[in-house]
């Protein structure tokens, strides 16, 4: 790999200058001639039947152009085919305070707001359902009346001989944990601008998933996708919060069609909290059996998710709370029972780590407790159970490149963990945890056999290269990654490569920026397209110059024979030669992950072409009198396969650590009396610059055989170990356990008095007998 000139180097992102000069245009920065502003009327009730809805006074207000209600958009939708349970505007019933009920398009926002006040809604209240316990209680009000219970989805799966594993165990331990919900808080409030020219709809919108939004628009508006163009301008942060088709997008589109004028909806910060789709609150029980030497003999997880009012990604979220525990530890027998309940709250969905941070928190705290009971060093306990590279897990996940052990070694050494654990003064402590995450979901959201990502490359006569991809840069730098990969293959500088992205008219399919899939999937597609371009150009050059093709490379802006640096031609000349003999210089590449799903229902969640691995050490300083936990320093080692740009990798590591610390200590998407406790940036505490500790990022490279230049994911996985590492550090510091996050100061004080703060039991639920799945043929029990 020593010949790489772009990959592996620290360099700016391709959009960096636009972003520091204010030139980058985000959705709300856009305006169109004759544009109207629209606002949504939101439910003031938590759970209620809409008895009467009269918009006549609103419609009569001068300056108002259209008013919509649920009846105008009656077709249900949802991001997952199995959960088509949302409406753009509530039909008959509202299921959370803040749910959109009506929409007004007017000359400006102020007029639209005045009109909203004139909409008359009469509600008949229904009982609120605000927790997992309430949702599952006998006689609970039905959030969706057509369903017999509030259980949205449930699953019970068993891999290997779980009962036998527990019987063989020398030691069995059970723990219960709770993760309160939290939310993404992208700094950019969601916005959308819809335009209708009489036959075609164009949406500029802040989404991470233009393709899926296009499909939802197709369904709800009954327009063919050929008449729908979705464009994502610069996007001000997503973290999973802009992965669903949203009410405001469908409503703005309909209003544009109805009025014949461009319509913009820009959510307020309060509304962003209602749009939500954030981290599910999850109540968890983990039980494991261990042999005397610390080897896991069996494990079972029961996870109860508080889903909020609608499905969103919830069917997948629920399965994710069970899927990835086996990707770090060689668990020989594993049972998972999961359930997602409907409640009358804004729907939860995917937030950075989607469904996996909650069980990872539980698992890594549980393992520390087990280690303590067994008298084992917590790291040694983990080492004895580590998953092996190029192996299969008992639940049919294929592990390929894996440098988890190196991650552990590096982070333990850098932090001085072993010297510090149990040896720091009272109030100070260190905690450790590991995790793994997918480099893209192996299966698309809707069943199909098609590529998940396609990339086209066009070369113009001046030598400029343009890469076309629907991958959506949400700040993580996917445009840059596509430019780097293309430049690397073609021997150019990234500055020579223009990236056109996230436009459904101009760019070929990419499923979107979720599940850490873009670098791996769009990246592989880009590499393939670029390699085809290279072959095309070099083939023509070889022919023209009479050189053997296998001696030619593209490097440093030339097509040349590396053995004869004086040979060859400049890139511009090379492409002229190629264009003359080969015609249009256009190539395409695509990527479809290998078929990896196991032979059981639910097996679509968890497989990925590659997993990243992380290990974290957190050092805390706790004030035993105030309960305040101050994180002093965080060390993270992350197996990213290959760092395509170490600067961006570090940025993702640091951002993940930050988001994890917010979740671990501060952030809580809480409700009181059926209503969001504080939908504002004052009430919902995101860490400030003064709350952020030093971060030591250690980039570990395992050179994945299937990743583009060996790369794997880095955007999400690092978040996972940090949260349990904080909890474990608090325990090391104070000797008490807070088995729920966020670990706020008041809980630490309570724990100091009681020894532990956390849930004591799970509500009863009669899971069906687990579906027994044989381990994969390639799986072998540990010797």
């Amino acid at each position, binding site marked *: 790999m020593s010949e790489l000139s772009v990959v592996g180097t620290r360099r700016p992102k391709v959009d960096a200058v636009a972003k520091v000069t204010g030139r980058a245009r985000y959705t709300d920065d856009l305006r169109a001639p004759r544009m109207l502003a629209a606002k949504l009327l*939101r439910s*003031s009730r*938590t759970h209620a039947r809409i008895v009467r809805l009269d918009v006549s006074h609103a419609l009569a207000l001068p300056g108002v152009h259209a008013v919509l209600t649920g009846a105008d958009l009656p077709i249900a939708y949802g991001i997952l085919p199995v959960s088509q349970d949302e409406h753009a505007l509530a039909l008959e019933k509202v299921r959370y305070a803040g749910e959109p009920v009506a929409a007004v398009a007017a000359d400006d926002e102020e007029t639209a707001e005045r009109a909203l006040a004139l909409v008359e809604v009469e509600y008949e209240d229904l009982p609120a359902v605000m927790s997992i316990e309430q949702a599952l209680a006998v006689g609970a009000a039905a959030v969706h009346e057509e369903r017999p219970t509030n259980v949205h989805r449930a699953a019970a799966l068993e891999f290997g001989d779980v009962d036998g594993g527990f019987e063989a165990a020398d030691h069995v331990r059970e723990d219960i944990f709770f993760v309160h919900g939290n939310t993404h808080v992208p700094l950019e409030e969601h916005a959308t601008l819809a335009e209708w020219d009489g036959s075609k709809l164009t949406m500029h919108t802040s989404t991470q998933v233009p393709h899926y939004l296009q499909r939802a628009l197709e369904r709800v508006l009954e327009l063919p996708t050929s008449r729908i163009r979705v464009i994502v301008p610069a996007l001000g942060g997503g973290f999973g919060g802009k992965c669903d088709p949203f009410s405001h997008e469908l409503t703005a589109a309909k209003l544009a069609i109805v009025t014949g004028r461009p319509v913009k909806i820009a959510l*307020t910060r309060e509304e962003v909290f209602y749009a939500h789709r954030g981290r599910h609150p999850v109540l968890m029980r983990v039980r494991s059996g261990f042999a005397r030497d610390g080897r896991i003999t069996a494990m079972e997880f029961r996870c109860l998710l508080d889903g909020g009012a609608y499905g969103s990604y919830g069917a997948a979220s629920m399965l994710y709370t069970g899927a990835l525990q086996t990707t770090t530890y060689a668990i020989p027998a594993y049972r998972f029972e999961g359930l997602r309940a409907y409640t009358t709250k804004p729907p939860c969905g995917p937030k950075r780590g989607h469904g996996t941070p909650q069980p990872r928190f539980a698992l890594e705290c549980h393992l520390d407790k087990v280690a303590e009971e067994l008298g084992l060093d917590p790291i040694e306990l983990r080492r004895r159970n580590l998953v092996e590279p190029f192996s299969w897990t008992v639940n049919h996940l294929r592990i390929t490149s894996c440098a988890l052990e190196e991650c552990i070694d590096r982070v333990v050494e850098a932090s001085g963990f072993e010297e510090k654990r149990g040896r720091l003064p009272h109030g100070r402590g260190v905690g450790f945890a590991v995790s793994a995450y997918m480099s893209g979901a192996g299966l698309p959201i809707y069943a199909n056999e098609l590529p998940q990502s396609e990339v086209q490359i066009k070369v113009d006569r001046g030598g400029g290269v343009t890469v076309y991809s629907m991958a959506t840069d949400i700040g993580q730098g996917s445009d840059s990654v596509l430019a780097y990969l293309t430049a690397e293959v073609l021997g150019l500088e990234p500055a020579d490569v223009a990236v056109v992205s996230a436009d459904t008219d101009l760019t070929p399919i990419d499923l979107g920026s979720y599940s850490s899939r873009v670098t791996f999937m769009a990246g592989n597609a880009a590499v393939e397209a670029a390699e085809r371009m290279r072959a095309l150009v070099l083939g023509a050059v070889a022919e023209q110059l009479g050189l053997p093709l296998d001696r030619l490379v593209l490097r440093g802006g030339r097509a040349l024979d590396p053995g004869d640096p004086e040979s060859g031609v400049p890139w511009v000349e090379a492409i002229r030669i190629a264009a003359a003999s080969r015609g249009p210089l256009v190539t395409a590449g695509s990527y479809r992950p290998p078929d990896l799903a196991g032979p059981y229902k639910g097996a679509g969640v968890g497989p990925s072409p590659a997993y990243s691995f992380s290990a974290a050490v957190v050092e805390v300083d706790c004030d035993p009198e105030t309960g305040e936990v101050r994180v002093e320093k965080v060390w993270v080692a992350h197996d990213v396969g290959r760092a395509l740009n170490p600067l961006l990798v570090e940025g993702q590591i640091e951002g993940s650590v930050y988001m994890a610390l917010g979740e671990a200590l*501060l952030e809580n998407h809480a409700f009181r009396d059926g209503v969001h406790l504080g939908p504002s940036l004052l009430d919902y505490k995101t860490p400030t610059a*003064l709350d952020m500790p030093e971060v030591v990022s250690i980039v570990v490279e395992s050179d994945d055989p299937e990743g583009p230049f060996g790369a794997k994911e880095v955007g999400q996985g690092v978040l996972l170990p940090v949260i349990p590492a904080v909890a474990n550090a608090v325990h090391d510091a104070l000797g008490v356990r807070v088995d729920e996050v966020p670990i*706020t100061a008041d809980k630490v004080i309570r724990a100091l008095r009681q020894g532990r703060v956390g849930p004591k039991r799970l509500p009863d639920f009669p899971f069906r007998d687990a579906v027994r799945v044989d381990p994969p043929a390639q799986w072998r029990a540990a010797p």
Partner: protein
Amino acid sequence: MMRLPPFRLLRPRTAAEAAGLLASSGTDTLAVAGGTDLYPNMKRRQVTPRTLVSLRGIDELRGCRAGEDGELRIGAGTTLRQLVADPVVTSHAPALARAAALVSSPQVRTVATVGGNLCIDTRCNYYDLPEGWRASIGFCLKAGSDVCRVAPGGERCWAISSSDLAPVAVALDAHVRLVGAGGERMLPAAELYEDDGIRYLGKRPDEILADVIVPPGRGLRATYRKVRQRGSIDFPLLGVAAAVRTSEDGACEEARIVLGAVASRPVRCLEAEQALAGRRLEPGAIEAAAELAAAVAKPMENTDLTPLYRKRMVQVHVTRALAELTELG
């Protein structure tokens, strides 16, 4: 985008002129200086004044001066950023500068004023959210309904005094000069506040807070501690101002302990203060005083973290404040 409701803006040049405008313009007229408290409240439609009287153009409200006797006079229009940096303030009333430095964020401190912080609206997490949200809880006493959501049985509003400067001003025995349409008067800082979340100020609506006068220190040592979840931006969950004067042998001649954010006004801990009288500031005395101080605090469930926790923190932070003052002595 959250936008301000329409209003008329008046720009008087003197405090007396401003007071006259406030007196003559009726109840839907409000004074505004920095606006960092009022404008968010207006954007959330908690208040929708028809007329605003801007105090920004009034030169006499600016500046900090120390008299020869050591008396400190702070113009209410002084911004918190100016206050923090003013050597007159940092030498004569460092606790006030410390409290000002802990208010909100750097950008807010650039425009927020001393007068504005002292008169800051009481806060409650049943109240300080947009109108649609308030509608979803059925509004509250402060928002015009007839029920307090924090204590539904009672008849008063329990919104919290959230000024960082107020506890310090009270602890320093500061006075405020009020300029009204009918003339001006001096008021002890403690009397500027009423124990009611709605009518929380003991001044007439036409009166403008013009100056804060801090008496000569004469050996008074003071400090301020602020509890909040984040290092910035947040309002206090608890503020503890403490001021003590000790004799040469270390005995406490005078002590004032004032709590912020535990009630609708700053709360003086009189019993705790008395318990310190004549005693040296040693751990035993401090602990006893802190316990008495905590007994006074009755935080409610209307801001971040639990009331029980906030009450417990009174004891911790009064202890720490007094310990700090011991070290300073």
